[in-house]
């Protein structure tokens, strides 16, 4: 009978081959298409999550969490794993009550519901967003033994929305208008001033992220995308676009996202994220587990100034470099994937990647950064990352002279 057959596992008849030739999941029905209308990762992937560094902030509401880049297999960051940066936690916004105000030095101020915003002509572009504090802990020394925590404040998504220039055309810029203030509706009312030239170039008032509505973590229902510029100017939970003559000199562009130079002078408005790359395999979280032999070195490169031209990889701490292969597509202000085949001899090694972008900018070493920027900046640590490979295959985050 039915029970008898179900109970007599074929495995018993073919012990040499099964399991795994015929593991339990092959001899049963799984859940059907009605079981989860919105899916989730396999439960075996439960450790692939955003993580944070508890000692960086006194409160989780003004803090950051990091994308697990060691488990990101391509240029797209999963919406569930895209890094977070909050200044007052994550607001829960009712899209029916959502409004976008466009006002200030414009001919015809405008108030838009979400439905109305979505009626405007739209574009869809893949861009990275990186927090300028990505790698901040690594300025003075190699401190965190983790790719996720040294480089994970970056994510890359397909953003869909209205070009900011389309909305500015619609309201009509007055000749005196030179700056735009984007502000959010989170508790921080997070706001940043942007020069009009960038606003009219490639910025997007976005409502879509990787095939669905923007996630609450990334600004649901609407955020600003300012391609290639510091994450914090990509205002989330966008409530207002205000036009003015001069910047507003908000707390975020003075106290928070300014750089104290060695001279004691403070530098505001550093905006563009310079080119950066990092090897994502191997890395501290993903050591070489199979002993000596063939491995593929993999990594990600990006530039706030345009496309990636080349990535070079060193296996000897920067003495010699080999050209890595770039994976298609290579898009502007977008993560680019690179790979290099490597036959590991089982000896210790110091591996690095170094990107050159289409402007000719070449990613600097940490020593070069220190020379020009001082030893203790906070932001825009785009220096070359060195991973130390031990004979055991373990990988450590190190800095070298």
């Amino acid at each position, binding site marked *: 009978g039915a029970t008898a057959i179900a109970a007599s596992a074929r495995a018993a008849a073919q012990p040499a081959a099964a399991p795994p030739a015929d593991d339990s999941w092959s001899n049963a029905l799984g859940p059907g298409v009605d079981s989860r209308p919105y899916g989730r990762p396999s439960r075996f992937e439960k450790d692939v999550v955003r993580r944070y560094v508890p000692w960086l902030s006194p409160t989780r509401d003004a803090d950051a969490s990091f994308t697990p880049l060691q488990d990101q297999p391509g240029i797209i960051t999963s919406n569930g794993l895209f890094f977070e940066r909050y200044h007052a936690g994550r607001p829960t916004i009712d899209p029916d009550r959502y409004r976008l105000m466009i006002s200030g030095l414009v001919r015809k101020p405008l*108030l838009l519901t979400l439905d109305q915003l979505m009626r405007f002509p739209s574009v869809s572009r893949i861009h990275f967003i990186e927090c300028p504090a990505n790698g901040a802990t690594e300025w003075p020394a190699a401190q965190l033994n983790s790719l996720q925590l040294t480089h994970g404040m970056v994510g890359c998504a397909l953003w869909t929305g209205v070009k900011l220039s389309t909305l500015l055309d619609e309201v009509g810029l007055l000749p005196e208008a030179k*700056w735009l203030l984007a502000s959010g509706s989170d508790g921080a009312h997070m706001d940043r001033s942007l020069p009009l030239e960038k606003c009219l170039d490639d910025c997007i008032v976005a409502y879509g992220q990787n095939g669905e509505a923007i996630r609450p973590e990334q600004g649901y229902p609407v955020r600003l995308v300012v391609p290639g510029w510091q994450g914090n100017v990509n205002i989330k939970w966008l409530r207002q676009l*205000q036009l003015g003559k001069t*910047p507003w000199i908000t707390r975020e562009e003075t106290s928070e996202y300014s750089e104290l130079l060695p001279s004691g002078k403070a530098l505001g408005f550093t905006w563009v994220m310079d080119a950066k790359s990092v090897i994502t395999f191997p890395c501290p979280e993903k050591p070489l587990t199979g002993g000596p032999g063939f491995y593929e070195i993999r990594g990600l490169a990006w530039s706030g100034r345009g496309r990636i031209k080349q990535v070079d990889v060193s296996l000897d701490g920067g003495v*010699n470099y080999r050209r890595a292969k770039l994976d298609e597509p290579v898009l502007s202000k977008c993560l680019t994937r690179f790979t290099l085949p490597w036959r590991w001899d089982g000896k210790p090694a110091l591996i690095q990647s170094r990107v050159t972008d289409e402007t000719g900018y070449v990613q600097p070493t940490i020593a070069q950064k220190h020379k020009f920027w001082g030893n203790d900046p906070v932001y825009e640590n785009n220096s070359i990352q060195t991973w130390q490979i031990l004979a055991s295959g373990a990988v450590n985050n190190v800095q070298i002279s």
Partner: protein
Amino acid sequence: GTPVASTQAQDRAVWNAEGGAGHYKPAKPVGYYAIGTTPTPAEIAGWTIAIPPSGAGLPAGQGTAAQGETIYASNCAMCHGTFGQGKNGYPQLVGGVGSLASSAPAKTVGSYWPYATTVWDYINRAMPFYAPHTLKPDQVYALTAYLLNMNGIVHSGFVADATTLPAVKMPNRDGFIWKDPRPVTHNAACMTQCANPVTIKITSNAASMNLTPRLTGPVDHMKPGK
């Protein structure tokens, strides 16, 4: 020090150069899409809370340090400390003048912020942390006066209002520059013998730092300093 007006003019020169629309030509005439509604002046005023250095948009109202002290004690001190010295990692608001070029700079409202209008603006929009943008204008004026006074920037009789705040000269107003003076390109795409292998030394190794939270299993909520 430099007079207020001339410093502002310096900043403004950079801001003017940085801003602007370039040679932009609109793709469509104003109102081409005819979508959305024209907000009422009251609506625009409700949304528009940002206060620039000129003070434009500061509401009617006023406040003194003495008034601010009371509000601060019950709404702010638990995080920022009774004397604005910061607490448990929450920001320090007072002190630090003269420390910015040192190896232990203290960036506070007093030592770092270039404009007093920003103090009003930020308290108004973001504080107190647990109930942001719920203070009345008089309360924000009072708290601003109190923070400026604690920092020794204004005397105890100072009345903060729409006229007095933009005129306050902050200690670090000359301290901000708005255009990156650092060289952009630092490296060369050298391919062989780019460094002397003998001089390569490991200068730091995160494995020995004991600062990394657990990277597998549930998220690690380790306390600062573990």
